[in-house]
């Protein structure tokens, strides 16, 4: 089996529906085709949409997060520059001046003023001698002589050489940092130059980031203590109410939930030369505002597409299935009609065959009986002549009866002189109706006619049409009760066909009767009918190239419609 065949058989299996012409077949067809169409269209759409969704989301996140990272990076640089400048200044002073010069508070004061003028943020400057005691000091506080020998920063400075502290309040009661540089004199004495720097400068750097009101940026130390005030997470030296992000030297972004329950993006960077981390916190909603808009558009597009697909799938399937059903039904109707016609034609042939076969023996009986009669009449003396005469006459009457039946069967009671002429159907109908006027009057049957006067004349046989109309009218009159009504109508169905309908409001027929109405010897008139009327009528109309249809409803009446060709049918010209 080729791949194509395989595919086809798969398709057939999927669209397997009952073959029987019943509502289930069309329901199943509708369901399956719709499902198939919808699946075929929606599944790729869903996949495409999902891919798009994630692609867009990733792209947008990148696009939004990248500038924030840049900003955080730049700000860290500013911080580092700030701290580096301050450290360098302190370092420079310690290199340029000897401890002796710096011990002189007048000198120290002059240097401090120059430095303060050049680099804002310096609060005080002091020299700590080898013993850890403030040997000289300039600044707003009276710290001269204070012993730092046990202070942590002092120890760290002695170890590292340069020390930048975390922010702390100290006894100055405002946030600041300490920058300390250790030096050795030529004779091996160690000393430390120490400066305090106001972290108000930090706040200005943070402010220069120009963040939206919903966003936040701050510096924390690696222990998680805030070094600058935060909008949402506390004051200076408060514990940051979030876990510290993992250590990296790159600027990184982290998605998390803050203590207030907001979904946030944290962009952070670790300082290289200080234990600080710069963090920028942006609420997710803020970041995804453009994304949300885009997403709504995407969803709207998706929903619209699906709705469109569904409506097309449903509409198309409905249309297709409807058409299919109509065509199935037409096919069946045509089939039934054909079957009916064929059946009638078979019955006709059978009846003719039987009649023909019977005619020959009948002819013999006829002649024998005739001869018997002849001989009897001629005999001079015939015992019981009257009795025999009666017997023979009865035989001859029976033969006559048979003869009339077989003759009607054979010719559909055809008159021998088929005579096609141009005639007015209305005239023929009115003429035929006049035969029944007496009966109509007698039984007070209302007859009415709506005849199309503009109809063309048709080529047909007057006598045969009269017989047809008379047969149908007789049936109509037999069906209606006294006082009933019979309505005639004629019209031009199409340029080649005229219609004649004869409608009564009589007792009507059951479907069963209707099915057999054109068959020979089928009669509902138990005593008076031969059962050949409609059979003969049917035969004549078919021979004239026309058609006949009967609609009936029990208790409501019957309408017999005859269609006749305007031009004579070839079969009708046989006898002319």
């Amino acid at each position: 089996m080729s791949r194509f065949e395989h595919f086809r058989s798969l398709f057939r299996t999927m669209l397997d529906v009952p073959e029987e012409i019943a509502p289930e077949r069309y329901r199943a067809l509708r369901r399956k085709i719709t499902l198939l169409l919808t699946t075929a269209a929606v599944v790729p759409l869903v996949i495409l949409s999902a891919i798009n969704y994630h692609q867009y989301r990733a792209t947008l996140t990148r696009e939004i997060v990248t500038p924030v990272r840049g900003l955080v990076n730049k700000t860290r640089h500013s911080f580092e520059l700030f701290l580096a400048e301050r450290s360098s200044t302190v370092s420079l002073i310690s290199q340029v001046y000897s401890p002796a010069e710096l011990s002189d508070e007048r000198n120290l004061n002059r240097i401090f003023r120059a430095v303060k003028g050049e680099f804002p943020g310096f609060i005080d400057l002091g020299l700590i001698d080898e013993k850890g005691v403030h040997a000289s000091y300039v600044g707003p506080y009276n710290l001269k002589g204070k012993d730092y020998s046990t202070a942590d920063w002092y120890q760290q400075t002695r170890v590292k050489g340069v020390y930048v502290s975390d922010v702390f309040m100290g006894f100055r009661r405002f946030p600041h940092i300490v920058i300390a540089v250790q030096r050795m004199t030529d004779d091996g004495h160690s000393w430390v130059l120490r400066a305090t720097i106001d972290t108000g400068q930090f706040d200005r750097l943070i402010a220069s980031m120009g963040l939206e009101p919903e966003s936040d940026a701050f510096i924390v130390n690696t222990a998680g203590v805030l070094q600058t005030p935060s909008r949402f997470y506390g004051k200076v030296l408060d514990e940051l109410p979030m876990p510290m992000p993992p250590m990296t030297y790159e600027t990184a972004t982290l998605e998390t939930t803050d203590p207030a329950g907001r979904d946030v993006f944290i962009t952070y960077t670790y300082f290289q030369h200080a234990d600080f981390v710069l963090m920028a916190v942006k609420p997710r909603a803020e970041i995804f505002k453009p994304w949300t808009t885009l997403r709504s558009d995407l969803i709207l597009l998706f929903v619209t597409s699906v709705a469109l697909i569904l409506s097309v799938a449903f509409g198309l399937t409905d249309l297709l299935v409807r058409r299919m059903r109509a065509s199935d039904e037409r096919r069946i109707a045509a089939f039934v009609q054909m079957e009916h016609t064929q059946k009638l034609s078979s019955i006709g042939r059978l009846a003719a065959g039987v009649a023909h076969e019977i005619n020959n023996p009948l002819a013999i009986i006829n002649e024998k009986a005739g001869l018997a009669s002849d001989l009897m009449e001629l005999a001079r003396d015939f015992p019981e002549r009257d009795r025999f005469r009666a017997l023979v006459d009865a035989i001859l009457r029976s033969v006559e009866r048979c003869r009339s039946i077989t003759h009607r069967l054979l010719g559909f009671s055809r008159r021998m002189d088929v005579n096609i002429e141009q005639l007015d159907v209305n005239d023929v109908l009115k003429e035929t109706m006049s035969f029944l006027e007496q009966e109509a009057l007698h039984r007070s049957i209302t007859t009415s006619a709506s005849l199309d006067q503009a109809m063309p004349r048709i080529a047909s046989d007057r006598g045969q049409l009269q017989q047809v109309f008379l047969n149908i009218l007789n049936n109509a009159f037999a069906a209606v009760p006294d006082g009933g009504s019979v309505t005639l109508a004629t019209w031009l169905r199409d340029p080649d066909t005229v219609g004649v309908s004869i409608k009564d409001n009589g007792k009507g027929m059951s479907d069963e009767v209707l099915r057999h109405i054109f068959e020979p010897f089928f009669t509902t008139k138990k005593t008076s009918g031969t059962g050949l009327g409609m059979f003969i009528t049917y035969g004549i109309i078919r021979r004239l190239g026309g058609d006949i249809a009967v609609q009936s409803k029990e208790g409501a009446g019957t309408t017999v419609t005859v269609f006749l060709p305007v031009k004579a049918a070839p079969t009708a010209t046989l006898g002319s």
Partner: protein
Amino acid sequence: MQELKVLLVDDEEEFVTTLAERLSLRGMVTRIATDGEQALRAVEADPPHVVVLDLMMPGIKGTEALRRIKAGHPAVQVILLTGHGSARDGIEGMKLGAFDYLMKPLRLEDLLEKLHEAGRLAHAAQGNS
């Protein structure tokens, strides 16, 4: 009234003998034939005035016999009999020169009437020839 010679042709012997007897009783000179060949020989031997010819016979079909009779003896009148309802054969026969046609079973009066008409025509034709 002149003598009327009638040849009855039908494959149903019972029919044809009985009919011959009935016609004889009515003063006609009858002969019978039960197939087409016999009929043709009988006509050759002594042309009758009228032939009553059944159309449905084995052997030479009625129409063929009719054609040959009319070809050899145009004066002989032929009345066709048909047990078949189809008017086609009858009408075709009329075209081939048959005098008329009747359907079986016959009404004797009809047959007699046709026979006399045909006989008059045959006598006239013979008289003229």
